[in-house]
């Protein structure tokens, strides 16, 4: 069974994780021995300079990228042995992701964009209720009047709210947010971040928040600094567990 968290309190753990990518220009060492453990329900902010390996670490945790060396366990599952399709199912059942660029489907309405993770679910009951729950979710992020709008008809902030609703609809055990405010103005960004923390607290989701913004990261329980592929600093944040 790959969909349940293990009984211990570790939502994700990385031990000695290395990642080297090969390009025409030569090998690039992106992660150089990362050790990180995040407990269930914890919110961890990841900060650091560009190219430091933040997004890559998130991808490794989500099973979007395979570590070249080291052990990655997410939701108690060792991801090393899962096939590409098994990893997709693992994400469907355990992980929600919010991207900097929103990554909504341009040909789907807001409602369809949010419903899609449930449409992909295994359980027929879940699938049958997909649109009702998507509607509720959109109402909960304040987009009850935008259900049938396409992404191109929404503002950046509204698109990101749709993305957040989509990330939370299947009540994931883990939420990964990669620069969720990077493409938004300050005011809109704040609304999105409030929404993320609000949902995190209400649902009890473990959250990994990547950001350039030190102040934003400090709202988490713990702040980890990643530079040149290594964790160079780790301190408590201002979150309830911090």
């Amino acid at each position, binding site marked *: 069974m790959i969909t349940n968290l293990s009984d211990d309190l570790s939502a994700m753990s990385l031990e000695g994780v290395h990642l080297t*990518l*090969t*390009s025409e220009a030569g090998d*690039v060492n*992106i992660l150089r021995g990362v050790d990180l453990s995040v407990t269930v329900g914890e919110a961890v902010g990841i900060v650091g300079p560009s190219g430091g390996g933040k*997004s*890559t670490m998130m*991808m490794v945790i*989500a099973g*979007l*990228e395979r570590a070249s060396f080291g052990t990655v366990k997410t939701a108690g599952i060792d991801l090393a042995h899962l096939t*590409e*399709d098994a*990893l*997709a*199912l693992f*994400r*469907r*059942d355990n992980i929600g*992701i919010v*991207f900097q660029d929103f*990554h909504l*489907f*341009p*040909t*789907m309405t807001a409602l*369809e964009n949010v419903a*899609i*993770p449930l*449409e*992909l679910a*295994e359980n*027929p009951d879940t*699938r049958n209720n997909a649109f009702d729950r998507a509607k509720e979710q959109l109402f909960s992020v304040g987009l009850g009047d935008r259900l049938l709008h396409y992404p191109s008809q929404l503002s950046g902030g509204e698109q990101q709210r749709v993305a957040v609703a*989509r990330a939370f609809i299947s009540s994931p055990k883990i939420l990964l947010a990669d620069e969720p405010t990077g493409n938004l103005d300050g005011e809109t960004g704040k609304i999105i971040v409030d929404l993320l923390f609000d949902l995190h607290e209400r649902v009890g989701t473990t959250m990994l928040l990547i950001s350039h913004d030190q102040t934003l990261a400090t709202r988490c329980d713990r702040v980890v600094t990643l530079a040149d592929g290594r964790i160079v600093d780790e301190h408590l944040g201002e979150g309830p567990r911090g």
Partner: protein
Amino acid sequence: MEMSYRFKLAFKLALREMRAGLKGFRIFIACLALGVAAIGGVGSLSEAIKGGLEKDARRLLGGDVALRLTHMPATSKQKIYLAKSGILSEVVEMRAMAHSVAKKKRTLVELKGVDELYPLVGKIEIGGDKSLKKALSRQGGVWGAIVETGVFPKLGLELGDHLRVGEAEFAITGIILKEPDRIANLWSLGPRIMVSSASLPETGLIQPGSQIRFHYRVLLRDTGRIGDWIEGLKLEFPSAGWRIRSLEQATPGLKRFIDYITLFLTFVGLTTLLVGGIGVSNAVGSYLEGKVGAIAISKCLGASGNLIFFTYFMQLFILAGIGIVIGTCAGALLPAVGAWVFNDMLPVKILIDFFPLQLLMAALFGILITFTFAIWPIARARAIPAASLFRDKVAPSNVKPEKVYILYTIFGGVALSAMTILFSVDRRFSMWFVIGAVGSLLLLSLCAMFLKWGAKRLKKQRSTKLSLALNNLHRPGASTNSVVLSLGLGLAVLVAIALIESNLTRQVDDQLPDMAPAFFFIDIQPNQVASFDKVVGEFKGVTKHRRVPSLRGRIVKIAGKTVGEVKIATGAKWAVRGDRALTYTATPSEGTKIVAGKWWPPDYTGKPLISLDANLAKGFGVDIGDTLTLNILGKEIEAKITSLREIDWRSLRFDFAIIFAPGTLERAPHSYLAAIQLPERLEAKIERTVGDNFKNVSIIRVREALKSAANILAGIGDAVRGISIVTILSGLLVLAGAISAGRKRRIYDAVVLKVLGATRTVVLQAFLLEYCILGAATGLTAAVIGTVAAWGVASLLMGIPWYFEILPVLGTILLCIFVTLVAGFYGTWRAMGQKASPLLRNE
């Protein structure tokens, strides 16, 4: 996730994807529509014509059953039997010379003598306001004749003038506008003259052994049991020697001709669809390239690779369906268009109907092409990793689909080939087409690969423009493959058609007349032989003169088995379809090439022996010592094969597939054939001399016959070329698609180059140089493929000597460079006009 739900979800997602509209798929749809329309249209039109022939079969046959005898009429007993079964009409046909009484001109005509019951079915249309009976009747001691207008210029006559056929004089009383039983006879050597059969004895042409065809058409009283009646007829007169045709075989020759023209045109349609397939592949590839993000997000959200595959597979098949439906509808309309265009040229009215089988076939071809060409790009989409959303910025993912999709693509190709071969009237020929098509695609792919490889090796050039051009040829996403494949195939077809045609024309125009006789004289009667030889022999300038006895007979048994029981090779079937010309001789003629067995002794007069064409022997599966049984003038003669000869039919030298040894045919009524060679300037004079001395002898001018053959070939060439324009059109569509797909990058390149200080001229020249190289390489490869295909058809299929003509090839290469340059210039010119700032800001 259960399978049914996965399909349902994939379908739902496919429909959502299609909300973006048909943008990017217009060429995909157009390519499929064009190819399917060509195949469905050609198939439907062919069926419509054949349907018309079947519908009018009674009219074309002239009755419910038609019997044909050569040389001699039916006996009274036979006629009584036929007349007892219903209504009997007798028609006599022969070739004859018509002379203008006043102007002393002569021409070869197709003479037809009809009785008072003619036509039993249908109506003859005559210009001149007279009934047929009245028009052909004897008025003031002169018989009437109606003629096709072709007679007038040849004899310098008008309506009302007199002409002479043999010994009889006729007044032209009307013009034949439509002859109900005339099947388009492509090889007709002269215009029709129709007279009353009662007048024929006065012509003096009805001689024993003359090349006369007697037709007996019967309108049966009991039409429900025609088959039984025919069986009864065969039992009653087992060796009558007549060819019996019922409604099903009313026009076998014409149907066969239509089948072959259809086959050629279907090949062109298939090539169009193949070119379209490249367009399909390009469109799917560039569409899915734009979907990398959406696919990666789906995978992030938990969509499996199979779900992605089914989603895009369904979407593409829905879009392909649109193209196929458009093509099928257009194809279905072709019979109606054909009826409008061709009705005056054909002996029947085209049947305007819906031909589901032909359209279904075309649609199936469309589906298979989509499957074969779209499966690989979809498989690539399926393999796009979720990490592409992030990682492509660092290390572009080299997507490698699962190997099973190679098998699917091969399966699609094999299914396409199998369909092409299995549903063809000539499987061997179709197999060669498939081999040629696959070979052409491989060769063009190799050309594209070589071009890219070469461009990569040569890219460091002193000239910036050349460097830019070479760089554009091999960079990722370059349109090199699409342009080479799409234009190359269409142009190869054009080169092949042009070269085949020029070889045929050369064969007819230049080569044949050197070896061929100037004249054939037919129906020289035995009592005229001596004087004919004397007249020709004394004529100054005749370089060769050969005369042989001739009569006709039909092969009825091969090695003791009736023809129907023997498996005869396609290339030999012609010999058993009708009567064959026969001759006999004691010694082989000059140039005879015996490849097996021995010629009989010069003084042989024993049991029937024959020397047979070696190719026919092979096609019949017989050898030396086997027998052929021939029905000659109603008598079956079994003859033993003692030698096989290799005959070059193209040489037009006098030759016969079957030559008898002396002792068998001498006593049968027969006439003589003669051929002479002489300089062109003397042709008119000898024609006049022989015509004046031997009024019954028909004179065939070989030069004219060849000219009309060349005209027919040119007509067929035009039809095939006309359809191949569709292939080129499809190629242009794909080219436009490829250029349009690369437009964004081209505009970006142009803007950046301009920002960096390159002038418009430099950028333009670099782009045009790229297209020039691309066009030249494609044209050259197309020329090679077209030349090889033309060589194969000319040398291996038609068996004519091969000549390479540089002009069509050069023309194609130049055309290709021109087309790519124009297309490239259009795309580039628009890129030149792009303002830099908005684009750079967006970037």
